[in-house]
Protein backbone atom coordinates (compact mmCIF):
# COMPACT_ATOMS: atom_id res chain seq x y z
CA UNK A 1 0.00 0.00 0.00
CA UNK A 2 1.10 3.52 -0.80
CA UNK A 3 0.91 5.25 2.57
CA UNK A 4 2.18 8.52 1.19
CA UNK A 5 -0.15 10.60 -0.94
CA UNK A 6 0.90 11.64 -4.44
CA UNK A 7 0.49 15.28 -3.29
CA UNK A 8 3.09 14.73 -0.56
CA UNK A 9 5.46 13.15 -3.05
CA UNK A 10 5.07 16.05 -5.47
CA UNK A 11 5.51 18.53 -2.59
CA UNK A 12 8.81 16.88 -1.70
CA UNK A 13 10.01 16.96 -5.31
CA UNK A 14 9.11 20.66 -5.62
CA UNK A 15 10.95 21.43 -2.38
CA UNK A 16 14.13 20.03 -3.91
CA UNK A 17 13.71 21.11 -7.52
CA UNK A 18 12.25 24.60 -7.15
CA UNK A 19 12.87 25.71 -3.57
CA UNK A 20 16.49 24.64 -3.05
CA UNK A 21 15.80 22.12 -0.29
CA UNK A 22 19.09 20.46 0.43
CA UNK A 23 21.28 19.33 3.25
CA UNK A 24 23.71 22.19 3.63
CA UNK A 25 26.48 20.09 5.09
CA UNK A 26 27.38 16.64 6.34
CA UNK A 27 30.37 17.20 8.58
CA UNK A 28 32.54 14.41 9.92
CA UNK A 29 34.06 15.37 13.26
CA UNK A 30 37.35 13.62 13.95
CA UNK A 31 39.32 13.62 17.18
CA UNK A 32 43.00 14.35 16.63
CA UNK A 33 43.80 13.98 20.33
CA UNK A 34 46.41 11.32 19.50
CA UNK A 35 48.21 13.42 16.88
CA UNK A 36 50.30 15.55 19.24
CA UNK A 37 54.04 15.53 18.48
CA UNK A 38 57.28 17.34 19.28
CA UNK A 39 57.30 19.29 16.03
CA UNK A 40 54.61 20.92 13.91
CA UNK A 41 55.74 18.90 10.87
CA UNK A 42 55.35 15.60 12.71
CA UNK A 43 51.99 16.66 14.13
CA UNK A 44 50.89 17.55 10.60
CA UNK A 45 52.00 14.14 9.31
CA UNK A 46 50.03 12.32 12.02
CA UNK A 47 47.00 14.54 11.44
CA UNK A 48 47.07 13.86 7.69
CA UNK A 49 47.17 10.08 8.26
CA UNK A 50 44.41 10.18 10.84
CA UNK A 51 42.05 12.43 8.90
CA UNK A 52 42.49 10.85 5.47
CA UNK A 53 41.93 7.38 6.93
CA UNK A 54 38.86 8.39 8.96
CA UNK A 55 37.30 10.37 6.10
CA UNK A 56 38.13 7.93 3.31
CA UNK A 57 34.51 6.99 2.62
CA UNK A 58 32.81 10.26 3.60
CA UNK A 59 32.29 11.67 0.11
CA UNK A 60 31.23 8.45 -1.68
CA UNK A 61 28.80 7.59 1.13
CA UNK A 62 27.24 11.06 0.98
CA UNK A 63 26.97 10.88 -2.80
CA UNK A 64 25.17 7.53 -2.57
CA UNK A 65 22.72 8.93 -0.01
CA UNK A 66 22.05 11.92 -2.26
CA UNK A 67 21.18 9.68 -5.19
CA UNK A 68 19.09 7.19 -3.24
CA UNK A 69 17.02 9.70 -1.28
CA UNK A 70 16.88 12.39 -3.93
CA UNK A 71 18.00 15.13 -1.54
CA UNK A 72 21.16 17.00 -2.51
CA UNK A 73 23.95 17.21 0.06
CA UNK A 74 25.56 20.48 -0.87
CA UNK A 75 28.77 20.16 1.16
CA UNK A 76 30.79 17.41 2.74
CA UNK A 77 33.18 18.69 5.37
CA UNK A 78 35.51 17.72 8.16
CA UNK A 79 36.09 19.19 11.59
CA UNK A 80 38.94 18.25 13.91
CA UNK A 81 39.71 18.88 17.57
CA UNK A 82 40.92 22.45 18.19
CA UNK A 83 44.53 22.28 17.03
CA UNK A 84 45.78 24.38 19.95
CA UNK A 85 44.40 21.80 22.39
CA UNK A 86 46.57 19.09 20.80
CA UNK A 87 49.66 21.19 20.07
CA UNK A 88 50.86 21.49 23.68
CA UNK A 89 53.73 19.05 23.15
CA UNK A 90 55.01 20.98 20.21
CA UNK A 91 57.38 23.65 21.47
CA UNK A 92 57.15 25.77 18.35
CA UNK A 93 56.05 29.28 17.45
CA UNK A 94 54.58 28.44 14.07
CA UNK A 95 51.78 25.93 13.55
CA UNK A 96 51.36 26.71 9.84
CA UNK A 97 52.70 23.22 8.90
CA UNK A 98 49.70 21.73 10.72
CA UNK A 99 47.34 23.91 8.66
CA UNK A 100 49.10 22.82 5.47
CA UNK A 101 48.59 19.18 6.47
CA UNK A 102 44.90 19.88 7.16
CA UNK A 103 44.58 21.44 3.71
CA UNK A 104 46.16 18.41 2.02
CA UNK A 105 43.98 16.04 4.05
CA UNK A 106 40.85 17.92 2.98
CA UNK A 107 41.94 17.77 -0.64
CA UNK A 108 42.63 14.03 -0.45
CA UNK A 109 39.25 13.42 1.24
CA UNK A 110 37.50 15.50 -1.44
CA UNK A 111 35.92 18.02 0.94
CA UNK A 112 35.80 21.79 0.39
CA UNK A 113 36.51 22.90 3.96
CA UNK A 114 38.14 21.53 7.10
CA UNK A 115 37.61 23.31 10.42
CA UNK A 116 39.52 23.20 13.66
CA UNK A 117 42.57 25.43 13.28
CA UNK A 118 41.21 26.80 16.50
CA UNK A 119 41.85 27.84 20.08
CA UNK A 120 39.70 28.53 23.11
CA UNK A 121 41.06 31.51 25.01
CA UNK A 122 38.01 32.95 26.77
CA UNK A 123 39.80 32.87 30.11
CA UNK A 124 43.45 32.84 29.23
CA UNK A 125 45.96 32.24 26.45
CA UNK A 126 48.24 29.18 26.82
CA UNK A 127 51.53 28.69 24.99
CA UNK A 128 49.92 26.56 22.26
CA UNK A 129 47.03 29.01 21.93
CA UNK A 130 49.56 31.80 21.53
CA UNK A 131 51.36 29.89 18.78
CA UNK A 132 48.11 29.09 17.01
CA UNK A 133 46.82 32.66 17.02
CA UNK A 134 50.21 33.87 15.78
CA UNK A 135 50.02 31.33 12.93
CA UNK A 136 46.50 32.19 11.77
CA UNK A 137 47.39 34.84 9.14
CA UNK A 138 50.05 32.73 7.42
CA UNK A 139 47.99 29.53 7.78
CA UNK A 140 44.93 31.07 6.12
CA UNK A 141 47.03 32.71 3.42
CA UNK A 142 48.81 29.44 2.59
CA UNK A 143 45.73 27.21 2.47
CA UNK A 144 42.43 27.12 0.57
CA UNK A 145 40.31 24.79 2.68
CA UNK A 146 41.36 25.41 6.26
CA UNK A 147 38.99 27.29 8.56
CA UNK A 148 40.02 28.89 11.80
CA UNK A 149 38.07 29.95 14.87
CA UNK A 150 38.95 31.41 18.25
CA UNK A 151 36.64 31.53 21.26
CA UNK A 152 37.29 34.76 23.16
CA UNK A 153 34.33 34.91 25.52
CA UNK A 154 31.83 32.76 27.36
CA UNK A 155 28.92 33.32 29.69
CA UNK A 156 30.74 31.36 32.39
CA UNK A 157 34.10 33.09 32.04
CA UNK A 158 33.27 36.56 30.76
CA UNK A 159 35.10 38.30 27.94
CA UNK A 160 38.85 38.16 27.42
CA UNK A 161 39.30 41.72 26.16
CA UNK A 162 43.03 41.24 25.55
CA UNK A 163 42.23 38.28 23.29
CA UNK A 164 39.57 40.30 21.49
CA UNK A 165 42.06 43.10 20.81
CA UNK A 166 44.60 40.57 19.61
CA UNK A 167 42.09 38.88 17.31
CA UNK A 168 41.27 42.26 15.76
CA UNK A 169 44.95 42.62 14.83
CA UNK A 170 44.98 39.00 13.62
CA UNK A 171 41.99 39.75 11.36
CA UNK A 172 43.83 42.74 9.91
CA UNK A 173 47.04 40.76 9.35
CA UNK A 174 45.07 37.99 7.66
CA UNK A 175 43.40 40.57 5.43
CA UNK A 176 46.79 42.01 4.50
CA UNK A 177 48.32 38.61 3.66
CA UNK A 178 45.40 37.76 1.36
CA UNK A 179 44.92 41.28 -0.02
CA UNK A 180 45.22 40.20 -3.64
CA UNK A 181 42.13 37.98 -3.26
CA UNK A 182 39.86 40.57 -1.60
CA UNK A 183 41.24 39.52 1.81
CA UNK A 184 39.60 36.09 1.51
CA UNK A 185 41.58 34.75 4.48
CA UNK A 186 39.22 36.60 6.82
CA UNK A 187 36.24 34.75 5.32
CA UNK A 188 37.71 31.60 6.90
CA UNK A 189 38.19 33.09 10.37
CA UNK A 190 35.51 33.37 13.06
CA UNK A 191 35.77 34.96 16.50
CA UNK A 192 33.28 33.38 18.90
CA UNK A 193 31.53 33.87 22.18
CA UNK A 194 30.13 30.63 23.63
CA UNK A 195 31.53 28.46 20.81
CA UNK A 196 29.76 25.09 20.56
CA UNK A 197 31.46 21.70 20.35
CA UNK A 198 29.33 20.15 17.62
CA UNK A 199 28.85 22.86 15.02
CA UNK A 200 28.79 21.35 11.50
CA UNK A 201 28.93 24.74 9.74
CA UNK A 202 32.04 26.52 8.57
CA UNK A 203 34.03 28.49 9.28
CA UNK A 204 33.49 27.74 12.98
CA UNK A 205 33.30 23.94 13.05
CA UNK A 206 35.47 22.13 15.58
CA UNK A 207 35.32 18.63 17.03
CA UNK A 208 34.77 19.26 20.73
CA UNK A 209 36.42 17.62 23.72
CA UNK A 210 33.15 16.01 24.80
CA UNK A 211 32.65 14.11 21.55
CA UNK A 212 33.31 10.51 20.51
CA UNK A 213 36.34 9.74 18.30
CA UNK A 214 34.35 10.31 15.13
CA UNK A 215 30.88 11.70 14.71
CA UNK A 216 28.52 12.82 11.94
CA UNK A 217 26.88 16.21 12.34
CA UNK A 218 24.39 17.52 9.81
CA UNK A 219 23.37 21.08 9.00
CA UNK A 220 20.01 21.55 7.32
CA UNK A 221 19.13 24.21 4.82
CA UNK A 222 15.95 25.35 3.16
CA UNK A 223 15.34 29.11 3.31
CA UNK A 224 13.70 28.83 -0.12
CA UNK A 225 11.20 26.26 1.17
CA UNK A 226 10.26 28.45 4.14
CA UNK A 227 9.85 31.51 1.93
CA UNK A 228 7.64 29.57 -0.51
CA UNK A 229 5.37 28.42 2.31
CA UNK A 230 4.98 31.99 3.61
CA UNK A 231 4.27 33.33 0.13
CA UNK A 232 1.57 30.70 -0.28
CA UNK A 233 -0.29 32.03 2.77
CA UNK A 234 -3.16 34.52 2.26
CA UNK A 235 -2.02 38.16 2.39
CA UNK A 236 -3.99 38.76 5.56
CA UNK A 237 -2.66 35.69 7.43
CA UNK A 238 -1.71 36.84 10.93
CA UNK A 239 1.68 36.17 12.51
CA UNK A 240 0.37 33.19 14.48
CA UNK A 241 -0.54 31.57 11.18
CA UNK A 242 2.89 32.48 9.77
CA UNK A 243 4.59 30.85 12.78
CA UNK A 244 2.44 27.72 12.39
CA UNK A 245 3.34 27.42 8.70
CA UNK A 246 7.05 27.81 9.42
CA UNK A 247 6.88 25.18 12.18
CA UNK A 248 5.25 22.62 9.89
CA UNK A 249 7.85 23.21 7.17
CA UNK A 250 10.73 23.18 9.62
CA UNK A 251 9.59 19.75 10.81
CA UNK A 252 9.86 18.36 7.28
CA UNK A 253 13.25 19.94 6.61
CA UNK A 254 14.58 18.68 9.92
CA UNK A 255 13.34 15.16 9.24
CA UNK A 256 15.30 15.15 5.99
CA UNK A 257 18.37 16.15 8.01
CA UNK A 258 17.70 13.51 10.66
CA UNK A 259 17.36 10.81 8.00
CA UNK A 260 20.58 11.81 6.26
CA UNK A 261 22.45 12.04 9.58
CA UNK A 262 21.29 8.58 10.70
CA UNK A 263 22.03 7.00 7.35
CA UNK A 264 25.46 8.62 6.92
CA UNK A 265 26.48 7.64 10.46
CA UNK A 266 25.26 4.07 9.95
CA UNK A 267 27.05 3.61 6.62
CA UNK A 268 30.27 5.13 7.94
CA UNK A 269 30.10 3.15 11.17
CA UNK A 270 30.46 6.22 13.38
CA UNK A 271 28.24 7.90 15.97
CA UNK A 272 25.44 10.19 14.87
CA UNK A 273 25.96 13.53 16.52
CA UNK A 274 23.50 16.31 15.97
CA UNK A 275 21.21 17.98 13.49
CA UNK A 276 21.83 21.73 13.35
CA UNK A 277 18.57 23.56 12.69
CA UNK A 278 20.19 26.74 11.40
CA UNK A 279 18.50 28.03 8.27
CA UNK A 280 21.55 28.61 6.10
CA UNK A 281 21.30 30.73 2.97
CA UNK A 282 23.44 30.42 -0.15
CA UNK A 283 24.18 33.08 -2.77
CA UNK A 284 21.73 31.31 -5.14
CA UNK A 285 18.71 33.44 -5.99
CA UNK A 286 15.75 32.39 -3.83
CA UNK A 287 17.84 30.65 -1.17
CA UNK A 288 17.80 33.67 1.10
CA UNK A 289 16.93 34.31 4.75
CA UNK A 290 16.47 38.03 3.99
CA UNK A 291 13.80 37.13 1.46
CA UNK A 292 11.91 35.15 4.13
CA UNK A 293 11.78 38.27 6.29
CA UNK A 294 10.64 40.28 3.27
CA UNK A 295 7.95 37.67 2.50
CA UNK A 296 6.77 38.12 6.09
CA UNK A 297 6.21 41.79 5.41
CA UNK A 298 9.20 44.13 5.72
CA UNK A 299 9.80 45.99 2.47
CA UNK A 300 13.55 45.38 2.63
CA UNK A 301 15.55 43.39 5.14
CA UNK A 302 16.75 45.95 7.69
CA UNK A 303 13.52 47.97 7.80
CA UNK A 304 11.95 48.45 11.25
CA UNK A 305 10.27 45.15 12.13
CA UNK A 306 13.13 43.05 10.74
CA UNK A 307 14.30 41.95 14.20
CA UNK A 308 10.73 40.93 15.06
CA UNK A 309 10.37 38.91 11.87
CA UNK A 310 13.74 37.23 12.44
CA UNK A 311 12.86 36.41 16.06
CA UNK A 312 9.61 34.78 14.95
CA UNK A 313 11.37 32.84 12.18
CA UNK A 314 14.16 31.61 14.45
CA UNK A 315 11.78 30.49 17.17
CA UNK A 316 9.31 28.77 14.84
CA UNK A 317 12.12 26.87 13.07
CA UNK A 318 13.29 25.52 16.43
CA UNK A 319 9.80 24.55 17.56
CA UNK A 320 9.10 22.61 14.36
CA UNK A 321 12.58 21.13 14.32
CA UNK A 322 12.34 19.98 17.93
CA UNK A 323 9.61 17.55 16.86
CA UNK A 324 11.77 16.33 13.99
CA UNK A 325 14.85 15.25 15.89
CA UNK A 326 15.94 14.48 19.42
CA UNK A 327 19.47 15.49 18.54
CA UNK A 328 19.29 19.25 18.05
CA UNK A 329 22.71 20.78 18.37
CA UNK A 330 25.33 23.00 16.86
CA UNK A 331 24.29 26.60 16.43
CA UNK A 332 20.62 26.03 15.55
CA UNK A 333 19.67 29.62 14.82
CA UNK A 334 19.07 31.41 11.53
CA UNK A 335 22.22 32.60 9.77
CA UNK A 336 22.38 36.12 8.41
CA UNK A 337 25.71 36.22 6.53
CA UNK A 338 25.68 39.22 4.23
CA UNK A 339 27.80 38.02 1.31
CA UNK A 340 26.25 34.53 1.24
CA UNK A 341 22.67 35.80 0.94
CA UNK A 342 21.50 37.61 -2.22
CA UNK A 343 18.66 39.30 -0.30
CA UNK A 344 21.07 40.64 2.34
CA UNK A 345 23.37 41.99 -0.37
CA UNK A 346 20.44 43.73 -2.05
CA UNK A 347 19.32 45.21 1.28
CA UNK A 348 22.80 46.64 1.91
CA UNK A 349 23.03 48.03 -1.63
CA UNK A 350 19.63 49.68 -1.25
CA UNK A 351 20.71 51.32 1.99
CA UNK A 352 18.15 49.37 4.05
CA UNK A 353 20.59 47.34 6.11
CA UNK A 354 23.60 48.56 8.07
CA UNK A 355 26.06 47.15 10.58
CA UNK A 356 24.09 48.42 13.56
CA UNK A 357 20.88 46.71 12.40
CA UNK A 358 22.81 43.47 11.84
CA UNK A 359 24.04 43.74 15.42
CA UNK A 360 20.46 44.08 16.66
CA UNK A 361 19.46 41.05 14.58
CA UNK A 362 22.31 39.11 16.21
CA UNK A 363 20.44 39.34 19.49
CA UNK A 364 17.67 37.07 18.20
CA UNK A 365 19.51 34.55 16.02
CA UNK A 366 22.95 32.99 15.88
CA UNK A 367 26.29 34.09 14.45
CA UNK A 368 25.18 37.61 13.69
CA UNK A 369 27.99 39.70 12.30
CA UNK A 370 28.82 37.23 9.60
CA UNK A 371 30.62 37.68 6.28
CA UNK A 372 30.64 41.45 6.45
CA UNK A 373 33.13 43.34 4.31
CA UNK A 374 34.31 46.58 5.91
CA UNK A 375 36.80 49.21 4.71
CA UNK A 376 40.40 48.01 4.71
CA UNK A 377 41.59 51.00 6.73
CA UNK A 378 39.21 50.32 9.64
CA UNK A 379 41.34 50.68 12.81
CA UNK A 380 42.03 47.45 14.73
CA UNK A 381 40.42 49.00 17.82
CA UNK A 382 37.20 49.58 15.89
CA UNK A 383 37.22 45.96 14.70
CA UNK A 384 37.80 44.89 18.30
CA UNK A 385 34.86 47.05 19.35
CA UNK A 386 32.58 45.40 16.79
CA UNK A 387 33.74 41.92 17.85
CA UNK A 388 33.28 42.73 21.55
CA UNK A 389 29.75 44.06 20.96
CA UNK A 390 28.80 40.80 19.22
CA UNK A 391 30.39 38.85 22.09
CA UNK A 392 28.61 40.92 24.73
CA UNK A 393 25.24 40.01 23.22
CA UNK A 394 26.20 36.33 23.40
CA UNK A 395 27.68 36.42 26.88
CA UNK A 396 24.81 38.32 28.49
CA UNK A 397 22.10 36.33 26.71
CA UNK A 398 23.75 32.95 27.21
CA UNK A 399 23.94 32.16 23.50
CA UNK A 400 26.50 31.72 20.76
CA UNK A 401 27.49 34.80 18.80
CA UNK A 402 30.37 35.40 16.45
CA UNK A 403 31.95 37.87 14.13
CA UNK A 404 33.40 37.15 10.71
CA UNK A 405 34.58 40.53 9.46
CA UNK A 406 36.59 41.11 6.32
CA UNK A 407 38.50 44.44 6.31
CA UNK A 408 39.13 44.32 2.57
CA UNK A 409 42.51 45.87 1.89
CA UNK A 410 42.37 48.89 -0.40
CA UNK A 411 38.56 49.01 -0.41
CA UNK A 412 36.28 51.72 0.90
CA UNK A 413 32.58 51.73 1.79
CA UNK A 414 30.49 51.16 -1.33
CA UNK A 415 33.19 49.16 -3.16
CA UNK A 416 32.48 45.56 -4.08
CA UNK A 417 34.36 42.41 -3.09
CA UNK A 418 33.90 38.88 -4.42
CA UNK A 419 35.20 35.61 -3.04
CA UNK A 420 33.28 33.24 -5.30
CA UNK A 421 31.41 30.03 -4.59
CA UNK A 422 29.46 29.73 -1.36
CA UNK A 423 31.33 32.65 0.18
CA UNK A 424 29.65 34.94 -2.31
CA UNK A 425 30.20 38.63 -2.93
CA UNK A 426 29.28 41.76 -1.00
CA UNK A 427 29.36 45.52 -0.92
CA UNK A 428 31.84 47.00 1.55
CA UNK A 429 29.80 48.34 4.47
CA UNK A 430 30.27 51.60 6.28
CA UNK A 431 31.71 51.51 9.80
CA UNK A 432 31.24 54.08 12.55
CA UNK A 433 33.95 56.74 12.47
CA UNK A 434 33.84 57.17 16.25
CA UNK A 435 36.73 55.55 18.06
CA UNK A 436 36.60 52.56 20.42
CA UNK A 437 40.32 52.81 21.19
CA UNK A 438 40.16 53.96 24.83
CA UNK A 439 37.78 51.18 25.81
CA UNK A 440 39.64 48.47 23.91
CA UNK A 441 43.09 49.57 25.11
CA UNK A 442 42.02 49.13 28.72
CA UNK A 443 42.24 45.40 28.09
CA UNK A 444 41.69 42.94 30.92
CA UNK A 445 38.65 40.76 31.30
CA UNK A 446 35.02 41.70 31.37
CA UNK A 447 33.74 39.65 34.33
CA UNK A 448 31.17 36.93 33.75
CA UNK A 449 27.62 38.20 34.15
CA UNK A 450 25.52 37.49 37.22
CA UNK A 451 23.36 35.28 34.99
CA UNK A 452 26.23 32.79 34.77
CA UNK A 453 25.95 31.91 38.48
CA UNK A 454 23.44 29.13 38.12
CA UNK A 455 24.72 26.40 40.40
Amino acid at each position, binding site marked *: *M*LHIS*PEEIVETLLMVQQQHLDIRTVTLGISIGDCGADTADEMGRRLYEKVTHAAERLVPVCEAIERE*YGIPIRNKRISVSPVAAVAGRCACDDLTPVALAMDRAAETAGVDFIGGFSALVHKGVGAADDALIRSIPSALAATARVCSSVNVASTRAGMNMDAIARMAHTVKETAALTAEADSIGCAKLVVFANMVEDNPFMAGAVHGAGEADAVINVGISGPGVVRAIIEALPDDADLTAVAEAIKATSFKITRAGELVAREAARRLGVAMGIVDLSLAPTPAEGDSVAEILEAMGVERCGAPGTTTALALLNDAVKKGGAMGTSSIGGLSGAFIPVSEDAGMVRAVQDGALNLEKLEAMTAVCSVGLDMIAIPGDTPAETIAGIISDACAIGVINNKTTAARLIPAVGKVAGDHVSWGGLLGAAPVMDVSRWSSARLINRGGRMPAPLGSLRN
Partner: protein
Amino acid sequence: MKTRAIVSVLGADRVGIVAAISAALAEQEVNIEDIRQTILSDVFSMTMLVTIDEDTHPFEDVHAHLATVADELGMQVTLQREDVFRFMHRV
Protein backbone atom coordinates in the same frame (compact mmCIF):
# COMPACT_ATOMS: atom_id res chain seq x y z
CA MET B 1 18.03 -6.97 0.51
CA LYS B 2 14.57 -5.73 -0.49
CA THR B 3 14.28 -1.95 -0.68
CA ARG B 4 11.00 -0.09 -0.94
CA ALA B 5 11.16 2.96 -3.14
CA ILE B 6 8.93 5.53 -4.79
CA VAL B 7 8.99 6.14 -8.52
CA SER B 8 7.47 9.46 -9.54
CA VAL B 9 6.82 10.43 -13.14
CA LEU B 10 5.85 13.92 -14.32
CA GLY B 11 5.52 15.40 -17.79
CA ALA B 12 3.33 15.98 -20.85
CA ASP B 13 0.73 13.25 -21.34
CA ARG B 14 1.17 10.85 -24.27
CA VAL B 15 0.58 7.25 -25.25
CA GLY B 16 2.75 4.56 -23.67
CA ILE B 17 4.18 6.20 -20.55
CA VAL B 18 2.90 3.58 -18.10
CA ALA B 19 3.95 0.82 -20.48
CA ALA B 20 7.48 2.16 -20.88
CA ILE B 21 8.06 2.72 -17.18
CA SER B 22 6.57 -0.65 -16.21
CA ALA B 23 8.68 -2.44 -18.82
CA ALA B 24 11.83 -0.71 -17.57
CA LEU B 25 11.05 -1.77 -14.01
CA ALA B 26 10.29 -5.34 -15.08
CA GLU B 27 13.66 -5.56 -16.84
CA GLN B 28 15.29 -4.81 -13.50
CA GLU B 29 12.98 -7.28 -11.73
CA VAL B 30 11.46 -4.45 -9.74
CA ASN B 31 8.05 -5.35 -8.32
CA ILE B 32 5.29 -2.75 -8.52
CA GLU B 33 3.12 -2.79 -5.38
CA ASP B 34 0.91 0.23 -5.89
CA ILE B 35 0.25 2.81 -8.59
CA ARG B 36 -1.54 6.17 -8.43
CA GLN B 37 -1.92 8.04 -11.68
CA THR B 38 -3.75 11.17 -12.72
CA ILE B 39 -3.75 13.96 -15.32
CA LEU B 40 -3.64 17.49 -13.90
CA SER B 41 -4.04 20.26 -16.54
CA ASP B 42 -2.48 18.06 -19.22
CA VAL B 43 0.40 17.10 -16.94
CA PHE B 44 0.76 13.38 -16.49
CA SER B 45 1.52 12.52 -12.87
CA MET B 46 2.18 9.01 -11.60
CA THR B 47 3.58 7.68 -8.36
CA MET B 48 4.47 4.06 -7.83
CA LEU B 49 5.46 2.13 -4.74
CA VAL B 50 8.01 -0.48 -5.81
CA THR B 51 10.27 -3.07 -4.25
CA ILE B 52 13.82 -3.43 -5.51
CA ASP B 53 15.78 -6.62 -4.90
CA GLU B 54 19.20 -5.09 -4.30
CA ASP B 55 20.91 -8.49 -4.20
CA THR B 56 20.31 -8.93 -7.92
CA HIS B 57 19.72 -5.36 -9.08
CA PRO B 58 21.44 -2.69 -6.99
CA PHE B 59 19.60 0.58 -6.42
CA GLU B 60 22.18 2.40 -8.55
CA ASP B 61 21.50 0.15 -11.56
CA VAL B 62 17.73 0.64 -11.38
CA HIS B 63 18.30 4.37 -10.98
CA ALA B 64 20.53 4.51 -14.06
CA HIS B 65 18.14 2.39 -16.13
CA LEU B 66 15.17 4.61 -15.28
CA ALA B 67 17.21 7.70 -16.13
CA THR B 68 17.75 6.33 -19.65
CA VAL B 69 14.04 5.65 -20.08
CA ALA B 70 13.23 9.13 -18.74
CA ASP B 71 15.46 10.66 -21.39
CA GLU B 72 13.81 8.62 -24.14
CA LEU B 73 10.32 9.61 -22.94
CA GLY B 74 11.25 13.23 -22.28
CA MET B 75 9.64 12.89 -18.84
CA GLN B 76 10.91 13.64 -15.36
CA VAL B 77 11.32 10.32 -13.58
CA THR B 78 12.70 10.09 -10.04
CA LEU B 79 13.46 7.08 -7.89
CA GLN B 80 13.85 7.62 -4.17
CA ARG B 81 13.92 5.35 -1.15
CA GLU B 82 10.52 5.33 0.50
CA ASP B 83 11.79 6.29 3.97
CA VAL B 84 12.46 9.87 2.92
CA PHE B 85 8.72 10.49 2.46
CA ARG B 86 7.75 8.64 5.62
CA PHE B 87 10.32 10.67 7.56
CA MET B 88 9.29 14.03 6.16
CA HIS B 89 5.54 13.70 6.14
CA ARG B 90 4.61 11.57 9.15
CA VAL B 91 5.06 12.50 12.82
